[in-house]
């Protein structure tokens, strides 16, 4: 314990020697105390933060990751072009459609395959559904780290409706593996559209008003989160934040708007930004994106064209490279796919937004109170599946 601080470049500062009934109290003598925030902490997930504190103030944070490493990038090399999606989607179980769409677009770019318009629209509907599902959990867990577990339960009820729609579409609720290079795997039936509309209706008419009344603009929530973990616009770009965290600092970066993919170019939506850059602003960005996603789903369902939903994807793909960015629920997800002319990918590199946010976190967490650590951690909206991959 003591040696780990010494290796990190911190010296022991002995304030006073404390003895209780002749017994040495050890750790209390050190000025800097290392705490393990994580693995067993209810808010941390499968990850550890080494937090050095001076009294109540955080001096340094060092994330320790790798608990859910699954070597997804390497596993893709042993798959064919089609069945690599099962590894790609497992980057994060919450929004699996975004990653599958990105991989599929990259593979289609190399193969020179054009996707039918219907497939593009179905992808858009699914991606936004995945975003809502992910954002609901994000909202719930942000308030959850402060000790209130009701919003999480409300969010799970709303999420269930979307999962029902995904089950009708693909047969699975979470690991759907429904988007493949060349389109989507299943016909978007009337029942699927119906269930999606039911889910969006529930979200807009039941969940959003009820949640807004209690957990948005809540004075207690504001005391804990306003001004906590503040990042300015320049600093957010410098430390490489991604996704809602970047937009909360006033940078209007959204791949859906900047480099439209799927059917986003034809739909009308706005990029949500906030100027404050603190934890509460990040929470509000997630909250307002939820409403925006519901609008996109409605538009995409209205504009769903007739026709094929899948084209044939060749078994062998010519040599080439492609880099594709998609706006995933947690930010910009990059796919660098390399083909050597075989039946499967030669190499896939995934650039994950949560990973970028994680290594920006120690910078944000300097000189904050220990109680603010979970709040900042939850507000950065990270997923451990895509930190480790």
């Amino acid at each position, binding site marked *: 314990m003591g040696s780990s601080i010494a290796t990190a470049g911190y010296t022991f500062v002995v304030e006073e020697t404390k003895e209780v009934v002749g017994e040495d109290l050890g750790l209390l003598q050190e000025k800097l105390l290392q705490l393990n925030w994580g693995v067993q902490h209810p808010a941390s997930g499968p990850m550890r933060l080494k937090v050095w504190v001076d009294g109540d103030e955080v001096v340094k944070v060092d994330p320790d990751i790798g608990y859910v490493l699954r070597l997804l990038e390497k596993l893709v090399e042993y*798959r*064919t072009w*089609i*069945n*690599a999606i*099962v*590894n790609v989607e497992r980057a994060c179980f919450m929004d699996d459609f975004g990653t599958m769409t990105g991989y599929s677009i990259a593979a289609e770019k190399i193969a020179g395959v054009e996707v039918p318009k219907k497939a593009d629209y179905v992808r858009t509907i699914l991606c936004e559904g995945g975003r809502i599902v992910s954002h609901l959990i994000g909202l719930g867990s942000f308030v959850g780290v402060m000790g209130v577990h009701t919003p999480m339960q409300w969010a799970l009820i709303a999420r269930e409706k979307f999962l029902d729609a995904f*089950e*009708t*579409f*693909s*047969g*699975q609720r979470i*690991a759907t*593996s429904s988007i493949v290079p060349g389109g989507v*795997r*299943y016909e978007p*039936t009337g*029942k699927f559209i119906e269930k999606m509309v039911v889910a969006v209706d529930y979200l807009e008419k039941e969940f959003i008003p009820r949640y807004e009344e209690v957990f948005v603009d809540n004075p207690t929530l504001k005391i804990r989160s306003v001004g906590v973990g503040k990042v300015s616009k320049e600093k957010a770009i410098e430390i490489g934040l991604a996704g809602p965290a970047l937009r909360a600092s006033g940078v209007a970066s959204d791949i859906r708007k900047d480099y439209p993919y799927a059917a986003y170019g034809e739909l009308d939506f706005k990029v949500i930004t906030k100027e404050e850059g603190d934890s509460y602003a990040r929470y509000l960005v997630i909250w307002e994106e939820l409403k925006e996603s519901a609008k996109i789903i409605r538009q995409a369902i209205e504009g769903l064209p007739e026709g094929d939903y899948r084209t044939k994807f060749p078994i062998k793909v010519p040599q080439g490279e492609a880099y594709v960015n998609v706006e995933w629920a947690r930010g910009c997800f990059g796919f660098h796919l390399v083909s050597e002319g075989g039946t499967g990918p030669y190499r896939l590199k995934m650039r994950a937004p949560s990973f970028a946010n994680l290594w920006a976190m120690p910078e944000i967490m300097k000189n904050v109170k220990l109680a603010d650590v979970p709040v900042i951690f939850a507000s950065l909206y990270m997923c451990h599946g895509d930190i480790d991959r």
Partner: protein
Amino acid sequence: MEIKEALMVPFEATKKVIRVTKALFAPKATEVWWDKGVKRELHYRGKHIIKAELCIGCSMCARACPVNCIEMVPTGVKKPRAVPKVRGNECIFCGLCEDACPTKPEKAIKLTDNYSMIVEPGTWDNLYQFVFEPEGLEEAIEKAKKMEEMIEKKKREALKKKQLEDKKGEEK
């Protein structure tokens, strides 16, 4: 203990006895769901069903499987040469084998809406033996054997005819 409380003791006791006896004969609060035959959605990806009669033994499903849990078991006849056997323990139920199956109009390997998969006790040996076997394999093999015999008979007859014709030709 006061007199009032002491008087209440037998009353409370009978109340409790009545509650317990009521609970004994009441219907169970939980139900055994897997006997009810719950219907899942159209595309539900559950237990596999493999029809040996339809299978042509092309092993496309085994190639499409991302976790390599499909094994092609040789049958000993020419068509199908081998039929798939799915190791249920390793399967992730992605349904890509069904997509890859080329038989038309019905697919030889299919994912049904049957999702009650119980292995008891869940030891490694038991789990390893949890396999989805092809249905009607023996019948299919017998049929194939009969077909092969028929074809061979026809071939022999054709050969005999040819030989007879050749002989006649030579005689002429």
